[in-house]
């Protein structure tokens, strides 16, 4: 491997000329300008950030650890929210059947939902980007095979594939998976369901990029294909990938919630937002609306704000895309 003088990508020249910090450049950029112009996007970004903060700070903010059965007391079950007639002091949003504080359960559930969502998105992105790069760069039969699989998978809704992966994992590792392995299975199911979008986008970018002069130059000085793909072609294909990743995060959170709601996701001992909605749904008829309403609002707010961010990013990064 000769690490000869590598021609840095084309943006290197102006970067050296200005010589300011990256923060200054970020604040000067078109993207930040368009961000400041859109109030809706700023609100969505603030809400998304808030959700992430709440998830990270859950152990500090929550009045109890809902995953720890020792902290749950049946005496405190089915208390309605604080502002209603029967509300009780530490339980702002009420408690559920097992005496679990709804707000604490939401904070901890948010952690799981976001963890599965982010990890699932990263896995899908890794699989998709790798296959897209290989398909676009190598071409020929490899390209044909990868894209054929992608086409077939695209005809089936992601949720169906995620359910199947889930079912197969259950039958291979036993029906009663412990919560941590279930988390891994969910990430795997999401990763395998959503890689196609990345692969198609990266491939089409690579097909455009690989005929440009800088790739030819890199090939001429004898760089290995792997290095050209990762260091030179991929950075130039990242724009659309970021858009897909944002929208994919919303979809991943939604898929996890759907799987958990269907009873094919996180167990009730370690609930995600979807599991909480599943549990709460059982008490709707008894008039205990708060057990399902607040996790539902949290989930809908989270997905809506990430989606709005994704929509904005799509328009800001590439006006030609739709």
């Amino acid at each position, binding site marked *: 491997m000769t690490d000869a003088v590598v021609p840095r990508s084309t943006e290197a020249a102006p970067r050296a000329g200005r010589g300011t910090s990256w923060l200054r450049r970020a604040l000067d950029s078109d993207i930040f300008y368009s961000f400041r112009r859109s109030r809706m996007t700023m609100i969505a970004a603030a809400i998304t950030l808030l959700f992430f903060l709440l998830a990270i700070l859950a152990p500090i903010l929550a009045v109890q650890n809902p995953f720890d059965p020792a902290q749950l007391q049946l005496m405190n079950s089915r208390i309605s929210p604080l502002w209603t007639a029967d509300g009780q002091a530490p339980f702002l949003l009420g408690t559920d059947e097992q005496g679990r504080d709804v707000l604490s359960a939401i904070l901890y559930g948010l952690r799981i939902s976001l963890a599965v969502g982010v990890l699932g998105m990263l896995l899908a992105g890794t699989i998709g980007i790798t296959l897209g790069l290989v398909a676009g760069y190598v071409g020929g039969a490899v390209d044909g095979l990868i894209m054929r699989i992608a086409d*077939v998978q*695209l*005809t*089936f*809704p992601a*949720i*169906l594939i995620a*359910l*199947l992966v*889930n*079912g*197969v994992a*259950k*039958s*291979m590792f036993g*029906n009663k998976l412990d919560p941590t392995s279930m988390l891994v299975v969910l990430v795997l199911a999401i990763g395998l369901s959503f890689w196609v979008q990345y692969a198609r986008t990266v491939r089409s970018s690579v097909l455009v990029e690989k005929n440009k002069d800088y790739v030819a130059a890199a090939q001429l000085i004898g760089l290995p294909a792997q290095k050209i793909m990762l260091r030179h072609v991929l950075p130039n294909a990242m724009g659309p990938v970021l858009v897909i990743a944002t929208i994919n995060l*919303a*979809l991943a959170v*939604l*898929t996890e*919630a*759907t799987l958990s*709601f*269907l*009873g*094919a996701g996180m167990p009730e001992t370690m609930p995600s937002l979807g599991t909480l*909605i599943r549990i709460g*749904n059982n008490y*709707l*008829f008894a*008039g205990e*609306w708060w057990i*399902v309403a607040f996790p*539902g609002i949290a*989930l*809908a707010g989270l*997905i*809506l704000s990430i*989606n709005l961010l994704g929509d904005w990013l799509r328009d800001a990064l590439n006006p030609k895309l739709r």
Partner: protein
Amino acid sequence: MLAFTLRRAFQAIGVMFAVGIIAFSMFRFAGDPVSQIVSIDTPPAERAAVRKSLGLDDPVVVQFARYFGNAVQFKFGMSYQFRQPVANLLMERMPATLELATVATIISMVFGILMGVYTALKRDTWLAKLFQMVSLIGISLPTFLIGILLIYLFAVTLGWLPSFGRGEVVKIGWWSTGLLTVSGLKAIIMPAITLGLFQMTLIMRLVRAEMLEVLRTDYIRFARARGLTTRAIHFGHALKNTLVPVITVAGLQFGTVIAFSIITETVFQWPGMGLMFVQAIQNVDIPIMAAYLLTVSLIFVTINLVVDILYTVVDPRLRSTVSRPH
């Protein structure tokens, strides 16, 4: 044209073959079929007998050929949890799912087209803006939350509609229909709206965009110049030309609707294939999962094939499929 049709047909068969391999691998390799059938204290000799009777000692290729041959004749083996042939279970539940999906599609088409035309013609009225808002919600809210919300409003609070099940059904041959009884019709309203809401917003947006485009064309201007009534122009000329892509998309989405009925059926405890599939996953009933996969794939592939062939006949411009979240 014939060459195109043949090529697409071969591709469809190829896809079904691939799905068949996946279904077979699930059946054969995910967990041990024998231990699912016998009880824990069955002696090894008996287990071996069961093994032999299932043909699990044959070469894998032979097993696959047998599985595929059976699947083509709609024999999917026995369900682990129900101890009944999977094909019978599927047949029993298929009418419920197909009726739900059909009613959902009809609702989404009727209201989607009406709302789309309205938002295109009267863009700045408050009602048009309301429709746009509803469409944003329809795309962002998870299906199951919409279902729960409807149940809370119309079943728990108002008590107008039943919250679960299909109501009374009438048997017509092997097909059981809930569309001929009052309780059956009441029961299908909420699930069909829940299932069709996403499709409705999709069709509304599509009709709106197409209408706005068509209204700018020369032949509409010419129709106005000729002095035709606004109604004739809007509905006789403009709408008619937007309907081809709308029907195509609705057709392609029918398969997706069937797959998404998994969620709706679970929320409303609708006794269809989707609910059975979810229960099969919870109970690790692999034969049902494999059979559901094969059945739904067959429906998907058939619809895609028919639509593909039809729209090269009708409108060569339309060649993209629409993907949906949940």
